[in-house]
Every structure is written in structure tokens, then in C-alpha cells.
């Protein structure tokens, strides 16, 4: 751990979570546990069985089954709603169901509503779908791009010409999912008289999507009331896309005149919910002979699946300010292209663009180090942004807030016994074993700038629209007449412990204990203070979520202090003050409002809209991570065993160290899954080959290596309490750290994610690629390998 600090505050300690007691007793309140509307009917969804086809749906037999309220088809959806808006134009309008043409296996075609779920599924079987097959596109490399933008910072051509070594490599990052254990759940209740839809859903934000759903439904914001349940069974980004089903079930409720509920099953989830993007990136990097990175050029082809679904193409742009990663290189260029394939649409997923970017960048750094005959750690050191440069403006516009990246590197090398790991690996390889060491240095951005997505437009196009910037959050702190304190959040947690931390923050402001504070995490768009940016994504809670809570609590404290002063009772209890504010407005200072409730909104500074040169501060805070790992490969089976893994984080101030640790461990598990097991597979006809949890392999306990986590704490000058997000970083770093170790063990660079045993066996038992471990002087200019 970092330097020992004596904490006189609740923040910085690790009290027991307030969430746990109910969850341990089975008394959590998850979406499918709720019956917010009496007598809701149950929906089952008919989904496309072909990846690309004209479809016509005949629901006559289903409608005639006893106990069926009705069936809503694509024709109804086209009549009653509009396509979902997205940040870029797309050739394929996206509705809540397929309208005429289905574009992926699992796309909704119709909704059947019946008295219970079993009956609804019976009726769904009676829906006849006539398919007229069309050619599917599954390979993104074979698809026609629908979006292209080019970016250039510094002088890449000049720097590349000066390079002693140019490495050019193509990397493919597959698609995977955060895979929450709880699937989507929705209850929709259309009020015809009021023209209002009330929807309960285990939504996680961003609440930009509330506007997207309202637009699809043709409703004003106040006519789409969305409520989230008290508990949500994980999300990792994935449950952002549940709002598409709020539209679908909302239309069903409206069309059929009954409240409707639907809980997604796992097969539906794997086929049709949401997955990360896939990315093919050619990375060209120029290096000086001493390892200095002189220039970087990316050519990225992003596969978003069947539709550009909001907030896409955000995965391509979320990391834009951090294109250079943790490095000082000033010459950076990128071409971003987007393609559609007949596969599951993409969306938020833990790491969101980070794994895709860093896989190419950090593999390139490892390949270059080997070619230069240098240790990867020393190449990293040569290039890391320096502590005395903070805050550091990257060429593409991010403002890195704080941190000593080299100190993190040193800590990781020390903690892992790096030199000894390398020596051990060398000896093991000399004995014929396949042992390797990998490194990854990544910057973990958090608190996304709402304006970064407008980089998908040119500066000229942007000039014609209203600006988007910042990342605002709301919270309220209310003190009742008995002095009880109730906090409401806009950050829709799914297990991160926001209620626990909010209580710590309020306790520090109001001079009470966390037990004195009740925190409600369920969000209601009609009553919770929220903004378009609200929700639980881009690891934003510890920055802006906490900022809003503290600001609201501070308003309450300041008002309470003013009342105390006016009463001449500086030591008056909060209960006494609240009693006065509620019971006796005449006793308050002149002009003071009665009551003791504060609403506050908070945003992180420096998050301007993109500038005319396409620079953007895409995130509000930036942590840093240095990972070192060692692997051994079983030549007989291809199985990769991670034998050592050290992850050193600097995420600023840790608000609750035990919860921070939990976020790192969880992010690591997702990274290990992506490294070794996980991908959404499709055959050439677009049929999912990972359609159940038997085939979509995600780690269980025996698959997770022992992880050593260390923290440094360089407070962010830009967040309320100095904290930065840390929930996603190890998901960004672990896939490439492990890949670097596997490439090192194999002595070849043509590795590809996921590093499954069959795939690694092939590499371990086939002709070596062009890599030679002891390469003499680096080639003057070299073409790279194809990965």
C-alpha cells in the first residue's frame, strides 16, 4: 500500500458496506423481484434465427391462444415509434424490433404478451416467421465502412522518417461481454390518459439514453419516467442497452393496454443484448535507437455489430485523448473507420475502448523493445510522461491530472521481482520450457467528457451544432424534522458500494457517522436530481458522483451553521437545527428558505468540447497502471498458466480502500477472461457459436491467478476528493500484459486474443514466425509482422 496516512475522516477508511446485510440474507431487491405494478402481463420475445434476412411475421395463431393479450410485431413498432437516434448517420435505421429486415441472430421480431411467462413462450412458438435469406457480413474486414475520420497531431511523417526502427503490425481484438450474472429486466406501464410511460428497468445509465428512448417513443422527457431497482446484479456497461427494451415493452404496453413485464433469459442475453466492439488496428510506430517512441499511427476498423446503437461510435472515441497512452510522444495520427456486421450490436463494456487501444499500443511497445534489443521496462521508462510534466496535455487533447508514472513502473518492477522473473524465464526457456514475462503501462481515464462523441463529426459539422462538454452529476441531501439524513444518488450502482461511500462523504461533511445516513441508490427520473450524464459508467462515481454528494452535504452544513449562528447556539445538534428549519420558519434568519434539503450538481473542470484541431480532453481524471506478469505454457495442451501478476495503480485518493481493491480484482478477472477465454464467436453464416454459457467460456475461481495489487496515491487536482476512477483499468491492461508474456514465452509475435489452449497449442507446436529473440542491431526500417 501507499504511504500510511492517519485518517481523521470517514473517507479513506474501509467501513463495512451498508449494502451487504440485505444481500447476504437474500433480501436484495433486484428487478425481477419487484412487482411495482399489480397484475402485469408477461412478455416473451420472438427473435431472428438468421443473421440477415427479409422477415415477415404472422402472429395469428399466437393471438388466438387463450391467455394471450396480444402480439406486437415490427409493423406495429414502425407505426408507433421512430428509429433510435445515434451520433452518426447509419444506412440501417434501428428500431426496437427488426422492421422488414433482420440483421443479426437474436434480433427481436415480435413481442408476445400473455398471463404468465410460460404461456407467453408457448405463444411465441406459434408466431410464424417467413425468412427470405440475404447474404450476411460477419468479417469486419469484408464490410464497407460507414464512417471515417482522420486525425493528426504533430508531424508524424517527419518523425517516422527520422526513426531508426519502424514497427508496423496489425492487431485484431475480438468481441466479448462483461456478462452480468443478472440479465435484463423491465416492467412497463403505459398511462393512456396521461400519455406517459412509466418504466422500471435495471438500467445503469448513461442517461443520454433516456433521451434516445424518449425520441424513439416520441415522448417528452417527463412522459418517460424511468425508475431503477434498489439492487442490480452487475452490469459492467452491458445494462446500458436495456433501454432499447424499455422502448419495446413500452410499445407493447401501449398497444395492448396492459402493464407488461419481461425478464431476459441467458440465451437471449448472449445472442441479443450487447457486446464490446471488435477492432482491427494497424499500428505503425517509429522508434529511435534508444527506444524513444517518435511517432504513432493508428488505422482502426471498428466493428459495432448490426447497428450503430447509441452511444456508439463512442468506443472509438472514448480513449481519444489518450491515443499516446502513458507516453510522451507528440506525433500521433489516427484513421477511424466504422463497419456494420450481422452480429450482436455493441455498447458499453468494462474498459470501453481501452482494451482495444492498449492491445495494439502495448503489443507494439513489446515488439519494438525486442527488435531494438532493449528491455521492455526500459523502453517504457524512456517514454513515460514525467512527474514534473503534470498536469500534462497530450497531443490529442487529454489533460493528465497527476501521478508519477515512473514511480509506478519502479514499484511494479520491485514488487514483481522483475529482474529475477526475466532471469528465471530465460533459464526455463533454455531448458525447453515455455515461460515468458509481459509488461503493460496504461493510463486509465475516468469521467467521460460528454463532448468527446462529437469528434465523430468534423470541426465544421460541430460548428453547426450546440456544444457538449463536461460530465455533470446530481445528488440531494435531505434532513427530516427528526434530524434523519437521506441521500439520493444519480449514479445507479450495480454492486460498487456507492451507498457506503456516499454515507462516508456525508458523515465527514455533517460531522456524524455513516450509520446516521440513509442513502437511496434507486433512481427515479421524476424525482431524483439527475443530468444527461448520470449513471454508472466511465468509473465516474468517485469523481463526479462523490463531488455532487459532497456539494449537497456542504450546502446543508452551511445552512445548518447559519441557523446555529442565528439561534446563538453554535453547538446545536443537527436534529435541533432541522427541527427549527421544519417547524419554525419564523425562527430562521431573514430571507432563509425553510426546510433543510439541498440539491447539488457537480461537474469536473477542463472538459471542453473538442477544439477546431480535433483535440479533446476526453476524460476528467487519469489514473495509471503498470502490470507485470509471467506465464508458463504447457506445450502439450497449450494451456496458459499465469504464474505471477503484479498490478500497481495510482488512482489518486482511495475513498474506501477495500472497495477499491474489489474493483481492481474484478477488473482483473474481466481482463483475464478476455486474455484467455472470452469472445463472441460466429460462424460464416452469422450463427452464434457461443450461444450458451457452456460455449461462452468465462473464468471461474480456478482460472483466476493470484494478483498482487499495490497503490500509490497521487490525488487528482480536478476531482472533489482527489479520487480517480479505477474500475476499468485492469480490464484494459491485463489482456495485453498476458499477451505480451505469451508472445515472450513463445518467442513469436503472431499471438491473438483470446489465448485459448487450442490456439496457443498451435503456436507452440508450429513453425516459428520470423521473430528471433537475439536480434543483432535493429533493422534500419522494418516491416512488421501480421498478428
Amino acid at each position: 500500500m501507499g504511504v500510511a496516512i492517519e485518517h481523521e475522516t470517514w473517507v479513506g477508511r474501509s467501513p463495512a458496506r451498508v449494502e451487504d446485510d440485505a444481500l447476504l440474507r437474500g433480501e436484495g431487491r433486484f428487478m425481477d423481484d419487484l412487482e411495482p405494478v399489480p397484475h402485469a402481463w408477461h412478455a416473451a420475445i420472438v427473435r431472428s434465427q438468421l443473421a440477415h434476412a427479409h422477415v415477415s411475421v404472422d402472429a395469428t395463431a399466437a393471438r388466438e391462444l387463450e391467455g394471450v393479450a396480444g402480439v406486437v410485431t415490427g409493423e406495429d413498432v414502425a407505426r408507433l415509434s421512430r428509429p433510435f437516434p445515434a451520433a452518426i448517420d447509419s444506412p440501417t435505421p434501428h428500431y426496437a424490433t427488426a422492421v422488414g429486415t433482420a440483421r443479426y441472430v437474436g434480433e427481436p421480431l415480435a413481442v408476445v404478451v400473455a398471463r404468465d411467462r410460460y404461456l407467453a413462450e408457448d405463444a411465441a412458438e406459434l408466431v410464424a416467421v417467413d425468412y427470405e435469406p440475404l447474404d450476411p457480413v460477419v468479417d469486419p474486414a469484408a464490410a464497407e465502412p460507414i464512417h471515417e475520420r482522420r486525425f493528426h497531431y504533430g508531424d508524424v511523417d517527419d518523425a517516422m522518417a527520422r526513426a531508426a526502427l519502424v514497427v508496423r503490425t496489425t492487431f485484431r481484438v475480438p468481441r466479448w461481454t462483461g456478462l452480468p450474472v443478472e440479465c435484463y429486466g423491465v416492467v412497463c406501464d403505459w398511462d393512456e390518459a396521461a400519455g406517459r410511460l412509466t418504466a422500471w428497468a435495471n438500467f445503469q445509465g448513461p442517461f443520454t439514453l433516456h433521451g434516445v428512448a424518449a425520441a424513439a417513443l416520441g415522448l417528452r422527457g417527463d412522459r418517460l419516467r424511468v425508475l431503477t431497482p434498489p439492487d442490480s446484479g452487475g452490469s459492467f456497461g452491458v445494462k446500458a442497452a436495456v433501454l432499447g427494451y424499455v422502448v419495446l415493452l413500452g410499445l407493447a404496453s401501449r398497444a395492448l393496454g396492459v402493464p407488461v413485464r419481461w425478464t431476459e433469459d441467458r440465451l437471449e442475453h448472449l445472442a441479443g443484448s450487447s457486446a464490446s466492439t471488435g477492432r482491427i488496428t494497424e499500428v505503425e510506430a517509429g522508434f529511435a535507437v534508444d527506444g524513444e517512441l517518435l511517432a504513432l499511427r493508428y488505422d482502426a476498423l471498428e466493428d459495432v455489430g448490426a447497428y450503430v446503437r447509441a452511444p456508439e461510435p463512442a468506443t472509438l472515441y472514448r480513449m481519444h485523448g489518450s491515443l499516446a497512452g502513458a507516453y510522451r510522444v507528440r506525433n500521433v495520427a489516427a484513421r477511424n473507420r466504422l463497419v456494420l456486421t450481422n452480429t450482436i450490436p455493441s455498447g458499453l463494456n468494462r474498459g470501453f475502448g481501452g482494451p482495444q487501444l492498449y492491445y495494439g499500443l502495448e503489443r507494439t511497445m513489446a515488439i519494438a523493445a525486442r527488435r531494438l534489443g532493449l528491455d521492455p521496462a526500459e523502453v517504457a521508462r524512456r517514454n513515460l510522461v514525467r512527474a514534473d510534466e503534470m498536469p500534462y496535455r497530450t497531443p490529442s487533447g487529454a489533460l493528465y491530472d497527476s501521478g508519477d508514472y515512473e514511480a509506478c513502473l519502479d514499484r511494479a518492477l520491485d514488487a514483481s521481482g522483475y529482474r529475477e522473473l526475466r532471469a528465471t524465464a530465460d533459464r526455463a526457456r533454455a531448458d525447453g520450457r515455455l515461460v515468458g514475462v509481459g509488461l503493460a503501462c496504461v493510463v486509465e481515464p475516468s469521467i467521460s467528457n460528454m463532448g468527446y462523441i462529437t469528434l465523430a463529426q468534423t470541426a465544421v459539422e460541430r460548428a453547426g451544432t450546440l456544444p457538449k462538454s463536461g460530465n455533470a452529476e446530481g445528488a440531494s441531501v435531505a434532513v427530516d424534522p427528526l434530524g434523519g439524513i437521506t441521500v439520493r444518488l444519480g449514479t445507479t450502482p450495480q454492486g460498487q458500494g456507492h451507498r457506503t461511500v456516499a454515507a462516508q462523504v456525508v458523515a465527514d461533511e455533517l460531522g456524524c457517522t455513516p450509520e446516521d445516513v440513509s442513502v437511496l441508490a434507486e433512481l427515479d427520473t421524476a424525482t431524483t436530481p439527475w443530468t444527461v450524464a448520470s449513471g454508472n459508467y466511465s468509473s465516474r462515481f468517485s469523481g463526479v458522483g462523490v463531488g455532487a454528494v459532497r456539494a449537497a452535504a456542504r450546502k446543508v452544513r452551511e445552512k445548518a451553521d447559519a441557523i446555529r449562528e442565528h439561534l446563538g447556539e453554535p453547538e446545536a445538534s443537527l436534529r435541533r437545527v432541522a427541527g427549527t428549519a421544519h417547524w419554525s420558519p419564523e425562527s430562521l434568519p431573514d430571507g432563509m428558505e425553510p426546510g433543510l434539503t439541498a440539491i447539488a450538481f457537480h461537474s469536473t473542470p477542463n472538459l471542453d468540447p473538442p477544439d477546431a484541431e480535433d483535440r479533446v480532453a476526453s476524460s476528467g481524471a487519469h489514473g495509471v497502471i503498470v502490470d507485470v506478469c509471467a506465464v508458463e505454457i504447457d506445450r502439450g495442451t497449450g494451456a496458459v498458466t499465469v504464474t505471477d501478476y503484479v498490478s500497481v495503480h495510482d488512482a489518486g485518493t482511495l475513498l474506501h480502500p477495500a472497495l477499491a481493491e474489489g474493483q481492481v480484482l474484478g477488473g482483473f478477472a474481466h481482463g483475464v477472461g478476455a486474455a484467455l477465454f472470452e469472445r463472441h464467436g460466429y460462424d460464416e453464416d452469422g450463427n452464434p457459436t457461443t450461444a450458451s454459457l457452456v460455449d461462452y467460456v468465462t473464468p471461474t475461481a480456478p482460472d483466476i491467478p493470484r494478483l498482487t495489487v499495490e497503490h500509490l496515491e497521487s490525488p487528482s487536482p480536478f476531482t472533489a476528493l482527489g479520487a480517480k476512477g479505477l474500475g476499468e483499468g485492469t480490464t484494459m491492461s491485463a489482456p495485453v500484459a498476458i499477451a505480451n508474456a505469451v508472445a515472450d514465452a513463445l518467442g513469436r509475435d503472431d499471438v491473438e486474443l483470446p489465448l485459448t489452449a487450442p490456439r496457443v497449442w498451435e503456436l507452440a507446436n508450429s513453425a516459428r514466425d520470423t521473430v528471433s529473440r537475439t536480434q543483432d542491431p535493429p533493422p534500419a526500417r522494418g516491416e512488421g509482422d501480421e498478428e
Partner: protein
Amino acid sequence: MTAIELTVNGRVVRETVEPRLLLTDFLRHRLGLTGTHVGCEHGVCGACTVMLDGASVRGCCVLAVQADGCSVETVESLAGNGPLTALQESFRRHHALQCGFCTPGILMAATDLLARTTPTRAEIVDLLSGHLCRCTGYTPIVDAIEACVESARARSGGT
């Protein structure tokens, strides 16, 4: 429809059900015992694990009619209205849950394991190969169960 009689968390229950009704749906939607969670309905994730006649089973792979005449225990039975069990306390102390959705199934499987044996760490890890947790990375769960084994051993004076 089939009449069934079973004991659920010590209480005798008589209901009439469709033969195809899953035990999980029976527990959750007929009896209101929503602590048993459903994550995959094909026997992989383990979230629905309950005790059936004293052995942990996947509730999603059992029909309610198959539980006729049986005794079923769910997560709600562990602490009842009283204090948390030692295992539940250990989960809390070790931050072995985040979203808590997989937790009831893991608690039931671990309760079963601890009732039968004094597991080694490797055996605990092996047990958890039958459960998906996407939040914790598993290590804190293993720690929590292992700590329970350790404290039980200390209480019994063993080594």
C-alpha cells in the same frame, strides 16, 4: 396440474403446479422467496443453488413437482430473522460480494460443503468452479470461506 407438498425453510407448503414449473420459479414467484436468483436457466452459473433434502442442487434444473415430498432450503433459511451466520459474516468481512446477485447460490453451496467436510483452499476453489461471479474476481470469496474453516477449526481446538 399437479398437487405437491414439500417443506420449504421448515414450513410445509401445499400447492398445485404445472408439471413444467421450475423449482426456481415456484420458489420465487409462487412463494415469494426471491433470494434464490436465476442467472442462466441451464445449470452453469450456480446463482439458483438451493438445498434439496440436504444436498445443494441447481434450482433451475429441478422441476417443482420433482421436489414433491422433499425438504428445500433457500438462502432465506440461513439467518432467518436472526444474526447472520458465520459464513455470511465472513462474506461481509472479506468483501466477498459486490452486486450480491450470485451470493445466495454460493452461500448455499458453501454451507453444504462446510457441513460435509473441512475443505482445503483448493477444495473451496474447486467448489467455486461451479459458480459465476463477475464482480469480485473470486479471491475474496475463497478467502471468506477459508476463514470460516479456520475459525471453526480454532473453535474446535483442532490444528
